[in-house]
């Protein structure tokens, strides 16, 4: 069985498990994203065909909600809070330092090697710890541009098993 066949069967199985009523579309997209970290293009088309919805409509829903990503996310998903409290306490310099460190330019948010992805979110509800970033559910409080660089270097080492 080719990897593509396995992939499509998995998408089919997810659609079947949630149920292919139109109202389930968002739940299905969430399941797919949980499985692959993003929404692969073939999955969007397949969901449409399987549910009897036009793939353009599925694409419309997938691009409307910021929770969905059509680009692969990194192994380490960095959420950089830009809520009011974090913003006034300097989340932007942190984000810029992060992007510079990871060499993310021109709207790209995942590194070439697929190790890191960076996104901004609006308030993580930890305003007392501002500015905050969250990496794969681990919270890093009171972050600074210098701290960001150290964290990234640590994670790279961790990934190499050092």
């Amino acid at each position: 069985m080719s990897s593509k066949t396995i992939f499509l069967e998995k998408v089919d199985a997810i659609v079947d498990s949630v149920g292919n009523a139109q109202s389930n579309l968002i739940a299905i997209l969430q399941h797919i994203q949980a499985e692959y970290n993003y929404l692969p293009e073939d999955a969007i088309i397949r969901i449409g065909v399987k549910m009897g919805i036009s793939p353009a409509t599925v694409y419309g829903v997938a691009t409307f909600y910021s929770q969905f990503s059509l680009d692969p996310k990194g192994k380490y998903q960095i959420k950089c809070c830009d809520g009011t409290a974090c913003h006034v306490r300097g989340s932007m310099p942190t984000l810029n330092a992060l992007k510079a460190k990871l060499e993310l330019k021109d709207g790209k948010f995942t590194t070439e090697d697929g190790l890191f992805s960076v996104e901004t979110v609006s308030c993580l509800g930890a305003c007392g710890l501002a500015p905050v970033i969250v990496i794969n559910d681990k919270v890093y409080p009171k972050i600074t541009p210098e701290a960001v660089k150290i964290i990234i270097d640590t994670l790279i080492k961790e990934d190499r098993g050092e």
Partner: protein
Amino acid sequence: MSDNNKKTLFVEGKEVEFTDEKNLLEVIRKAGFQVPTLCYRPDLTSFGACRMCIVEIEGRGIQSSCTMPPEPGLKIRINTDTVRRIRKMVLELLLANHNRECSTCSRSHNCELQKLANLYEVNEIRFPGKKRLEELDDTNPSIVRDPNKCILCGACVRACAERQGLSILSFAGRGSKTIVTPALKKHLAEVDCVNCGQCVAVCPVGALTIKSDIEKARALLNDKTKTVVCQIAPAVRVAAGEEFGLAPGENVIGKLVAALRIMGFDKVYDTNFSADLTIMEEGTEIIRRLEKNERLPLFTSCCPAWVKYVETQHPELIEHLSTARSPQAMFGSLVKDIAVNRDGIKRENFKIISFMPCTAKKAECQREEFSVDGERDVDVVLTTQELIKMLKGSGINLKDLEPETPDLPFGSYSGAGTIFGASGGVAEAALRTVYEFTTGKTLENVDIKETRGLSTSKELTVDLNGTKVKVVVVNTLKEAEKMLRKVIDKTADFQILEVMACPGGCISGGGQPISCNEPGKVEKRAKGLYDEDSSLPIRKSHENPEIKAIYKEWLEKPGSEKAHKLLHTVYIDRFENCYKNLK
């Protein structure tokens, strides 16, 4: 109904009665007032996107009239200072993001946004705006999509979903990044678009336009080494006059013939001729299938959008499609075959240009099946809109011309050929011939009224020599899909299914002059066709003398081997190459 039950409201102080109008806009229009709109299309869901149709209602403030249901006693003002100020501001905002290259836009002078900007005196745009910088998509053979001119009114999204059930175009993204696009921002040529052009027909601006082939046609006409002939489709003759100040629905075939002779065509023929030919072939096929009780129900195959729909969405049903080519395609193959094999003209020096109400015909003529040695049967397809533009661009005023008659033999037609342009026409034309062929009796009353009219679904049962044959006529692909479901579920109780993809048939084709806000126009075009039919001495395809002659001289008999080679086709399972096929 007693006066107590009468429901009224007030527009600008005038008491206006209303009954079942679905929104205030309809009531206001019925009362003879005009409210501007960019996104409202009477047969599509009200969307309230453009905010042009806002009105001021006493005690309710500002409301968009297209989304508000009428209520008794409402006091509506349609032109207050506030209303005008808001409309003007909205126009300014729309224009701030709009690619305002009006002078080079094909919708210039015919653009609803441009017209309103002028009416509301938007002389300067105070906002810098943010222009989209999306790629212009001209990959589709019929439709050009320019997202940078899109005002996000959603008319195309609704037309594709609600008329055709396809939803090829959809909104994607959010807020200022919203865009109308096919799935995954693919090109229109890479998705299942059937090229019907209904999105073009409802677009208020130049975001969706017909792909122009006028230059190609002019180049052929200017090439003195080429013999160039043309065919004019039925629905073109009742729409082309509109843009020259003639009444909607007025039949201008004679004037068109005169105009095209001035343009330099060597011969001006009529697609109605090959519509008659279609009836001979398809009629014979219907009779054969009914006798053998095989591949029923038979689907008509004149509409290229419908054919592509079956090939891409339901390839398992392609055997139901009549193998008869569409009238345009039959004309191309037959006339070229005769020119080459009888008259000895080199194929590359004999060119055919079609004038069609249809954008999908542009795609049809590019099908590989409809060419010989790489030379297409029909070389260029121009829509009614392009025909009008070409004539105007050549300084020809259709209105002033004396009518002339088309050239023979391929300009000879019966009334049955003419009504192909309206939904139900193909079925009616076929029944006139099939009835006489099967019963051997003369059909005295040729008017088959049951299949006429703009309703999306019509049916009729006829008795053919003791066999009851049920004919279902639908227009719009959404309606066709319902019938296909019956075929798939094996609950279909009909033997013949006529489908035209555009609402009401070719008369409201994607290539016709835009009429989406004037529904009455389409009815008048239909009337123009039926009037021509009843005015003609010959109203049955098989009685057209030139059809008889062409069989005698060239095609032997309907359904012969030669007729099959020239006038029939095979259909291809296009799901194989479809973007939805992920294997």
